[in-house]
């Protein structure tokens, strides 16, 4: 199975925006090449996590090896290396692309190029990939391939005269795509004689076999009997199993330069075999690792607390298990007087955070309180020390602070022209600095802003989508830190300061946020038997206050024989709601309250 000359290997990935049909196209390629029989085909084969299938997005990438007999009569091995389609995982995308020589650029023929796609195309160009434009969904009534071709040529400068018109759903253009891959994507360099090196582009934890590492051999040969070394982590392992993905794992004896495969080697945690690390052989190690290895660093932090404090140990175990499979997830114990014991967790971005939270609740059956996400602030104290703060409640007192720096990102938004005004207003409200606006094609615009990351990790994405009726797309990159006039906003419920509700906000927005937040909390916190004051303060100064009136009655009046089932249902619903409340001192607070700061008003 591995006896394929380097000249007949083709490694490629698919670059596409969410919903533009990447997964469907991948499925169709697997089917057409006979890699997966029609019988075994389940929709969207590559997206193997439930959350991915439900949301129709790819988070974790995988790979598939296909045999394809081209019109020249030769049989080629095509390796499709899938990429995650979300801004949180840009680094993973870059490593996947580094493992390829070519990429299919799939663009929805009615929608055109989106920001994320553009970012990934630039990544592909940086990696010298051959890019084959594919216009997908040409069968749909709104398709306008000529306009979209012009757009690609304009924006990316890519010749689209040979762009393939396809419909993955209808099977249109699939043979053309396979032919184009063999003709246009260059074969890997034949470096079979060099000391072995392989690039890890993905890994996952299997509870029975340890970590399974996905890699592309760049130089030399890796044999199943070899002992390997991971050049960044320095760890060494005997290979338990070497194989290829077709797309199920099939063991092989050896893999040579250009090939894509997997290794299982009793590696205990993905941390020991991170994406971007280089595999070499202990017997004849390479002198230099492959370029581009970076340890993915969390950008967004939040507190995770079990609703029921008895679940603290369960939460720890669940996080330990998730971490085996997710090297980017960070956490350390956090204790809060209001919330009890929990963890401060770091994530690559908001989606990453949501995925982890959802997996903890779904797969580990935990009831969690998630506090509002925070970024890392750099605080210079009056003594001249610089400390990093990822938790607003840890911010030193004003008299101890010299200044606060916060992370900024460059945001690129691609949008139809008509939404430019409302999106500029959004960016402005989020303390953005306007940098640039360009027409890509008539009617399509790119907006560039520099915005504090803290303003992005709230509901910026949702707001952008709703203001543009779903048409705008965005992409952002960290560009550094800037000093701003930031203050800490504290929240007191029934006279007790509630740490997890503390927020770091710009001085000029503090009043508005304080007022909106207390109003929102009033709405979210159920009435109790006593009146509950809710206050927002900066230091000792109260800037907003509301109060929740006391609950006067909570009784189901008339109840007759025919009414018992219905009344029971009502009470069960009430009971379920109550179970999800977190007791903070004397007040029971619902989960949503801790995210309230993200949802202050629809237009903020």
């Amino acid at each position: 199975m591995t006896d394929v000359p380097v000249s007949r290997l083709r490694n490629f990935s698919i670059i596409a925006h969410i919903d533009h049909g990447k997964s469907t196209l991948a499925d169709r390629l697997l089917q057409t090449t006979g890699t997966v029989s029609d019988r075994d085909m389940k929709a969207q084969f590559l997206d193997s996590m439930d959350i991915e299938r439900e949301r129709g997005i790819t988070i974790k990438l995988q790979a598939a090896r296909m045999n394809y007999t081209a019109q020249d009569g030769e049989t080629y091995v095509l390796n499709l290396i899938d990429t995650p389609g979300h801004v949180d995982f840009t680094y993973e995308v870059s490593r996947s692309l580094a493992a390829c020589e070519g990429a299919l650029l799939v663009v929805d023929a009615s929608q055109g190029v989106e920001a994320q796609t553009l970012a990934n195309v630039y990544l592909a160009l940086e990696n010298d990939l051959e890019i084959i434009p594919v216009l997908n969904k040409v069968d749909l009534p709104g398709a306008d391939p000529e306009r979209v071709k012009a757009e690609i040529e304009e924006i990316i400068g890519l010749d689209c005269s040979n762009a393939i018109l396809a419909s993955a759903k209808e099977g249109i253009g699939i043979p053309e795509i396979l032919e184009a891959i063999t003709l246009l994507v260059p074969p890997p360099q034949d470096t079979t004689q060099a000391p072995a090196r392989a690039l890890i582009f993905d890994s996952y934890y299997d509870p029975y076999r340890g970590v399974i590492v996905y890699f592309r051999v760049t130089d030399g040969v890796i044999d199943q009997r070899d002992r390997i070394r991971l050049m960044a982590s320095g760890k060494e392992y005997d290979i338990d199993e070497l194989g290829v993905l077709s797309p199920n794992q099939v063991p092989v004896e050896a893999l040579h330069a250009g090939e894509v495969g997997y290794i299982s080697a009793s590696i205990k945690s993905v941390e020991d075999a991170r994406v971007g690390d280089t595999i070499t052989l202990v017997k004849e190690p390479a002198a230099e690792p492959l370029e581009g290895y970076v340890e993915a660093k969390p950008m967004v932090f939040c507190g995770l607390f079990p609703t029921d404090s008895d679940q603290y140990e369960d939460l720890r175990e669940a996080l330990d298990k998730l971490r085996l499979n997710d090297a980017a997830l960070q956490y350390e114990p956090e204790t809060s007087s209001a919330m009890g014991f929990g963890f401060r967790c770091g994530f690559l971005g908001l989606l990453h955070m949501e995925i982890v939270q959802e997996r903890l609740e779904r797969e580990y059956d935990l009831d969690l309180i998630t506090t509002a996400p925070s970024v890392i602030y750099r605080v210079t104290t009056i003594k001249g020390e610089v400390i990093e703060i990822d938790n607003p409640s840890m911010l030193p007192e004003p008299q101890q602070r010299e200044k606060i720096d916060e992370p900024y990102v460059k945001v690129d938004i691609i949008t139809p022209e008509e939404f430019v005004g409302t999106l500029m207003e959004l960016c402005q409200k989020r303390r953005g600095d306007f940098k640039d606006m360009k027409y890509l094609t008539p009617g399509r615009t790119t907006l560039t802003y520099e915005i504090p990351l803290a303003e992005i990790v709230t509901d910026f994405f949702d707001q952008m989508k709703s203001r543009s009726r779903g048409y705008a797309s965005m992409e952002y990159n960290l560009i550094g830190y800037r000093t701003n006039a930031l203050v800490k906003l504290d929240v007191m419920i029934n006279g007790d300061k509630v740490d997890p509700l503390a927020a770091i906000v710009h001085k000029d927005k503090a009043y508005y946020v304080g007022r909106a937040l207390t109003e929102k909390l009033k709405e979210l916190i159920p009435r109790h038997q006593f009146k509950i004051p809710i206050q927002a303060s900066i230091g000792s100064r109260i800037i907003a206050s509301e109060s929740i009136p006391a609950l006067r009655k909570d009784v189901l009046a008339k109840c007759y024989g025919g009414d018992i089932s219905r009344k029971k249902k009502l009470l069960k619903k009430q009971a379920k709601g109550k179970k999800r409340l977190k007791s903070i001192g004397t007040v029971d607070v619902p989960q949503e309250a801790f995210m309230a700061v993200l949802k202050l008003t629809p237009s903020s």
Partner: protein
Amino acid sequence: MRPLANLFAPIPATSAYIHIPFCRRRCYYCDFAVSVVGSTKRGDTSLTISQYIDTLLTEIAATPLENDGVNDGATYPLKTVFFGGGTPSLLAVPQVETILNALQERFGIAADAEVSMEMDPATFDLSHAQGYRSVGVNRVSLGVQDFYDEVLAASGRFHRRADIMRAVDCLQQANFKNVSLDLMSGLPHQTLETWQDSLQQAIALNPTHISQYDLIVEPQTAFARYFTPGEAPLPSDDHTAQMYRMAQQTLTASGYDHYEICNYAKPGYQAQHNLTYWRSQPYYGFGMGATSYLHSQRIDRPRTQQTYHAWVDQFVAQKGKTNDPVISVQEQVLESLMVGLRLKEGITLNELYQVYGEPGLRAIEKAILPWCGDANPQSSHPPRLPDRPALVHVQTDGQDYQTVTNLRPNSRIQLTDPEGFVMSNQVIVDAFNALEAL
């Protein structure tokens, strides 16, 4: 978990509910199964009503005798019959008689049975009252609601204060000794003053029983479209809670025992039929929208004329059997807790103990002791505040909980009056959560 069979001592069904779904018009707060017949039609002039009675009789005749596992050879005649509605006082006297005859024939009716009928002022006259009395109705539940005409009008009621007075007079002349007045608090334009006055006027009519229902704005009702609960013209939550306390004070001071969350009775005049529900005992149910509770099955009949007629056809074809699910003993414990705590007498924990064992007692202890008030040393939540009254009272072997370390199967749990009653859901949902976590 213990085995599920024979948990609860089998009790034969000796109560029957008859639903008479006809009304002159629909009140603005009503979401019951009701057919509107307009302001002139009555039971003897409406084809719809007479057809309905026929189907009702068919259903009664097709219903198997339910001794619920009691096979001691004895017969168990009905001890309570309840004509509810709708407006049963729209029926002609012979129609009521036919139904009672059918029940007598099928199940027997005990000589001292309580036979209740809901009646609305302005839907009957003296001859009707005398007629109902003569065919065996011996208790009347009169839908007064309020004594102020503007409140009645704003609630979509057909009657006015003068009709109430006439109705009570008719009932007295017809020799009804057991009359209950239904009152509603929380109606539009009610104030604390008018409510206090309505309570006094009710007491002045010297009924044996008074029900007080706090308005619930149900979805799908006219009120739900017009009003927001707690906002004018509806009284505020503060006021309706106060109205509840006013009723408790005024009525108990006048010799009415607050024996159930919404019900008050002179000694010896508790509503026997409704006690069946609150003690989770089985009962027959007949008619459109009616529910029966037999062999741990709650059977809800369809809520429109047409679907009810079709249901009875099928019921007859299946020889009185239905495929409704049996309520698990765990759910039965939740239900008996929910309805049992409505009674002043409260509940004991015997059934709960049979189903959930010792862990059930500990769980319920953890859930309710915090509500036992300041004096409870174990109480941490809600924290002890001086103005926080106890919602729950616990007794074991006649002693208060302070002297008893643990709840036992024979412990009795009661909601306090009025504070525990008015906050009852808070206690019940904690108990639900405690048991469902097991």
